[in-house]
């Protein structure tokens, strides 16, 4: 098995962040939200706006772990005709401009399973995908996609939560690579955040189980919150706040208003500013 955690864009990015002495900003957007063109423009603008890593949500009709914001984003994307092939095309397009920013596809298993696991991994690698987060594939099902992904050289990033206890953590960590995504609250995306103190205790606990970088997400909405998180973790993940900014730039019929892309990227730049100033 190739040791994906020692190679690849994700670990290189965390190494360079460590050299710079700062935490990273991980931004989440939903592929195809509100439509393919706008989503692609946002994606292409993310590295310049200060995103250190990019998560792209693969839309699914039944996103059980997501709150109303990301559910709605997925439905907007599907209504605009988003498909897995188009999502992979977005990554290919990004890679023409950007060879360094890690891209992680995040979503649910069924659309991957129906696309075909082997075909998906082949196409994802060719497109320039670095990691996968598949919310509804627990470690018990590692044979399905996790192990083939690691074999192919794609990081498989797992979520750990406050209820993942010390007995369970080693099992969650065993085949995790790239980074660990710590979900700072019990619950769904887009809800309230945890306090820095609680997150600090949790990251300390995670570091006893893994040497991987830790990104903390769920409930981080503002530059200040992102900054506070990167003082204790290696990166902060912002999702719902960005997706909400997309939604705020739609008219009553759901069509994008002029300036949507710029407004979303302005939010990312503010978040990046917070993260970059955090340890200064």
């Amino acid at each position: 098995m190739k040791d994906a955690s020692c190679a690849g864009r994700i670990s290189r990015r965390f190494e360079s962040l460590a050299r710079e002495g700062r935490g990273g900003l991980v931004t989440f957007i939903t592929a195809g939200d509100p439509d393919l063109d706008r989503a692609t423009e946002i994606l292409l603008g993310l590295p310049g706006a200060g995103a250190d890593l990019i998560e792209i949500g693969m839309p699914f009709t039944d996103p059980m772990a997501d709150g109303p914001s990301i559910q709605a984003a997925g439905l907007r994307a599907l209504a605009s005709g988003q498909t897995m092939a188009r999502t992979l095309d977005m990554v290919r397009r990004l890679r023409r401009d950007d060879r360094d920013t890690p891209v992680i596809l995040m979503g649910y298993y069924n659309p991957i399973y129906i696309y075909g696991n082997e075909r998906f991994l082949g196409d994802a690698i060719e497109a320039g995908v670095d990691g996968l987060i598949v919310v509804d594939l627990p470690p018990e099902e590692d044979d399905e996609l996790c192990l083939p992904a690691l074999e192919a050289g794609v990081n498989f990033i797992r979520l750990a939560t406050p209820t993942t206890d010390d007995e369970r953590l080693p099992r969650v960590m065993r085949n995790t690579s790239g980074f660990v995504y710590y979900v700072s609250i019990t619950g769904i995306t887009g809800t309230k955040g945890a306090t820095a103190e609680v997150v600090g205790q949790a990251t300390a606990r995670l570091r006893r189980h893994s040497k991987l970088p830790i990104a903390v997400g769920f409930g981080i909405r503002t530059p200040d919150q992102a900054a506070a998180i990167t003082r204790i973790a290696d990166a902060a993940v912002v999702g719902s706040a960005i997706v909400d900014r997309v939604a705020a730039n739609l008219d009553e019929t759901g069509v994008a208003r002029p300036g949507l892309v710029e407004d979303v990227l302005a939010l990312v730049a503010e978040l990046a500013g917070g993260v970059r100033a955090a340890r200064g």
Partner: protein
Amino acid sequence: MGQILLARRMGKKRIIAETGAGQHGVATATVCALFGMPCVVYMGEVDIARQQPNVFRMKLLGAEVVPVTSGSRTLKDALNEALRDWVTNVEDTYYIIGTVAGPHPYPMMVRDFQSVIGEEARAQMLEAEGRLPDALVACLGGGSNAIGLFHPFLDDEEVRIYGVEAAGRGIETGEHAASLTAGSPGVLHGNRTYLLQDEEGQITEAHSISAGLDYPGIGPEHAWLKDVGRVEYVSATDDEALEMFELCSRLEGIIPALEPAHALVQVARIAPEMPKDGIILANLCGRGDKDIFTVAEALGVTL
């Protein structure tokens, strides 16, 4: 009942559930009232509108009924929303899933608890008739009443078993809930089973006149029983079910729920081909009082 005893043993203080037709919601609200536990039931907005009597029952029993407005606003969306509540409040909350779907160990646990149906029916049949039935028939949405009836008979090879899915407006129209008959394998709600889905793996909306059958998946054990050929899965349309709803009411003096009215369609299909002393055991898994408004509307009757 089994699940709430488990919840109490686990020290959980709050109960949540999803419901389609409201049967499981009423059952959950009942046991919560009995044990004095707060109860929140997630129910699709569409189902709330067509199952008013059960919504009122749940409220009488002290449950909070939360309308679910996402997706198709039916059973699968209620399940999504209940799962979201559960992961948020997992410390103090137990989720009583009403069907043999969801992540392990729910399909197994719900099957084992529901098997009281089959155990009891089997014992009663042996006592009353001195032999096993020739055929079993049950309707399937998620498939819990059916697996509960079928499971104790699976090793009785001489007993033919039929599961009846909702064909809605007809399989050919695409507006149905027959995931075993017309779906394909996929993964939803933590299990791999037959699903109604498009070529992108997106879940498509199920349709049935019966709220309890309106689910685009099926318990994973049914998928297995289909693949090994032990159970024959067939389907019945809205119109066929309505016809049996009326016929059963008139002939038997029993107003069946719309869900088991689908099972009765299959009973009417196989009965004429059986000997006079043949025995068919059909699971009449719900009463029709809750459905009279839906049926009246479908028949064009103003109440």
